[in-house]
């Protein structure tokens, strides 16, 4: 008996030496966080995404202008060069821009924007500008940054075809483009767990019917399906309703892969000893599903979903680009890119393609975060 105690103590001591004391009491989510933090690229990407979402949330404040106010005189004006050295060669602590002066090319009648070096328009933080109502609640006219002269216009990323500020519109576009992925994925998540769970837990005929439906859905080419469904949307619907309709369209296809994963995991986990032990403990079906089955692969599902968000963003962008998704006056990155369809734009106003950069950066960031989460999501494999 004393031998047993002594041996146990030895065993305990040996086990404790190996593992950091913190790891022993760490919950699943703590372990995942530690693993995730080791993935530097994922951490940087997460920071980028947080900034993007903060910008989207506070779009009215971050954007220097109202996205619908246009300046005819600045149609297709190029981006400003932000300067620190004035024409006399002196260094200015406060950055400034020269306003554009528009002239016409005497041969082609193309607009030519020339910087007027006699005028210096300094930039400022928290400047007053167009009035807005943040989230429809707080009235203000203070913007994060802009030109100190409210009448002048800072062309950070150029102006669009009717003289609206492109940077402002990209900021507002982020609001729709970045959230459509989240809402769509949340819906896919819900549908996938519901149908995958039913399929895996009930088995038999239910399983067979659901699996055949999934196979049929996956066999459909997605682009024609989206086109067909979006044509079915009435064109006189308000922007918000169209937005949700598109989310639903995107998730009708998105849920199938998640349902497959959930089903497979349910099948595998039901054979695990600890699930059998729970049944013998007297745990009911719901308790087993929510306390034993779902937590065992929730982290994996979250990682999968993070990788699914970019698909939703791309789907929205693609649909809007070909004119079947969101339509003006709604602002999304896809809608903005629609302006860049013409070859003339590519040749003369390449800045109109800049929304693509934001699409690419956000999708890459989501992918890296998803990678990091996937590696970290099962912390028990390598402990």
């Amino acid at each position, binding site marked *: 008996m004393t031998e047993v*105690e002594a041996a146990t103590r030895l065993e305990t001591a040996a086990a404790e030496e190996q593992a950091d004391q913190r*790891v*022993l*009491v760490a919950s699943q989510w703590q372990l995942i966080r530690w693993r995730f933090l080791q993935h530097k690229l994922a951490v940087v990407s997460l920071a980028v995404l947080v900034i993007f979402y903060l910008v989207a949330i506070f779009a009215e404040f971050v954007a220097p202008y109202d996205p619908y106010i246009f300046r005819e005189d600045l149609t297709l004006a190029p981006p400003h060069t932000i300067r620190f050295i004035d024409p006399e060669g002196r260094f200015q602590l406060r950055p400034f821009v020269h306003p554009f002066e528009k002239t016409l090319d005497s041969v082609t009648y193309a607009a030519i924007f020339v910087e007027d070096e006699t005028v210096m328009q300094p930039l400022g933080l928290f400047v007053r500008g167009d009035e807005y109502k943040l989230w429809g609640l707080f009235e203000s006219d203070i913007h994060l940054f802009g030109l100190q002269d409210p009448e002048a216009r800072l062309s950070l990323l150029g102006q669009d075809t009717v003289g609206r500020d492109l940077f402002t519109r990209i900021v507002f576009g982020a609001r729709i483009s970045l959230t459509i992925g989240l809402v769509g994925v949340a819906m896919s998540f819900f549908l996938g767990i519901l149908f995958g769970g039913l399929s895996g837990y009930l088995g038999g005929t239910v399983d067979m019917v659901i699996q055949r439906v999934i196979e049929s859905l996956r066999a459909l080419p997605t682009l024609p399906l989206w086109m067909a469904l979006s044509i079915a949307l009435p064109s006189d619907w308000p922007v918000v309703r169209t937005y949700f309709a598109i989310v639903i369209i995107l998730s009708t296809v998105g849920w199938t892969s998640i349902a497959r994963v959930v089903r497979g995991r349910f099948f595998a986990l039901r054979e695990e000893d*600890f699930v059998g*032990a729970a049944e*013998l403990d*007297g*745990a009911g079906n719901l308790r087993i599903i929510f*306390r034993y089955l779902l937590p065992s692969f929730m982290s994996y599902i979250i990682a999968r979903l993070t990788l699914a968000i970019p698909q939703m963003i791309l789907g929205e962008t693609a649909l809007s680009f070909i004119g079947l998704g969101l339509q003006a006056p709604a602002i999304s990155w896809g809608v903005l890119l629609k302006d860049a369809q013409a070859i003339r734009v590519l040749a003369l106003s390449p800045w109109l393609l800049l929304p693509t950069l934001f699409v690419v950066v956000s999708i890459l960031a989501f992918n890296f975060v998803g990678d990091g989460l996937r590696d970290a999501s099962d912390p028990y494999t390598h402990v």
Partner: protein
Amino acid sequence: MREAGGRAQMEDRAIISVRNLVKHFPIETGFLRRQVGVVKAVEDVNFDLNEGETLALVGESGCGKTTTSHCIIQAQRPTSGRVLFRIGDAAPMDLTQMEKAELKEARRNIRMIYQDPYSSLNPRMTLLQIIGEPLVIHKMAGSQEALREKVAELLRLVRLDPSTMNRYPHAFSGGQRQRIAIARALSLSPKVVIADEAVSALDVSVQAQILNLLKELQNQLGLTYLFVAHNLAVVKYEADRVAVMYAGKIVEIGETEELYTNPRHPYTEALISAAPNPDPDTKNRARIVLAGEVADPGNLPPGCAFHPRCRYAEDRCRREIPELVEVGGEMGPSHRAACHFASELELAGISGGAEEPEREQA
């Protein structure tokens, strides 16, 4: 009526009586799930588990010992047969006829320890949650404070430090995990514990600790064990009685000492001779190597299922299925074997050696 019949069927000391237990698995094929055969995993098994004893169920992989234990606790429903369970002087209950709610109550008294302590503990739950789960489900915990108190007591019982109750299973070694599994099994103060290869997945040194612990707990709490194992050395140490299974049937059952020294079935003899003996002085012990695989329960040979591998087999063995009959004589405790020549063969037990190492002609 069922109760009266049950009482007549149960021996006085028995807490669980298994009667004519049969478990068949259909072999299905094709899209329409046509049944093309049947795997006879457990075929007409009878035994009594007496209160306070340890009965070991031994045999090769695939002999049906685990299926038998699962059929007793109704983790798998048997095809036919009865599993009678009785607490004290109460009327015996047939577990096979029970509905879910009744079973939940019965399973408070019959608990199970799994083989692999790495897969039998939910990695997402702390010790407090794992060991406390049965108490919570059966609403025996009361407050959170009472639950912690009870779990701490159980952890002390299995010689683990109660201050570790907020840790997750990944922080523990294999032996410690099996202690956790034992604590979970004991949390409802059961009468019977079914240990399904409870030490097979552990190191030999750790095995001894867990076996000692199980024995100690048995003395302390008056537990009855059904010990499923394939290691005869482990069984010799732990069990009062042994039942040897082959191809879904019990081929020999008796007191451990008697069965080890005086086996009455050729299969038992082979098993004993195959058990590694750490004593260097018994060099001359013959090892009987069985040829071939364990009989396929989906396609059993006619007659005695063991005859293709039996070195004593005669024509009768190929035709007639032997009954499990008493071979221990009138005086001694019950010792039964299912072999046509049980009373004639000179079989080697653990102390004696066969005269000449006679190798199996494969």
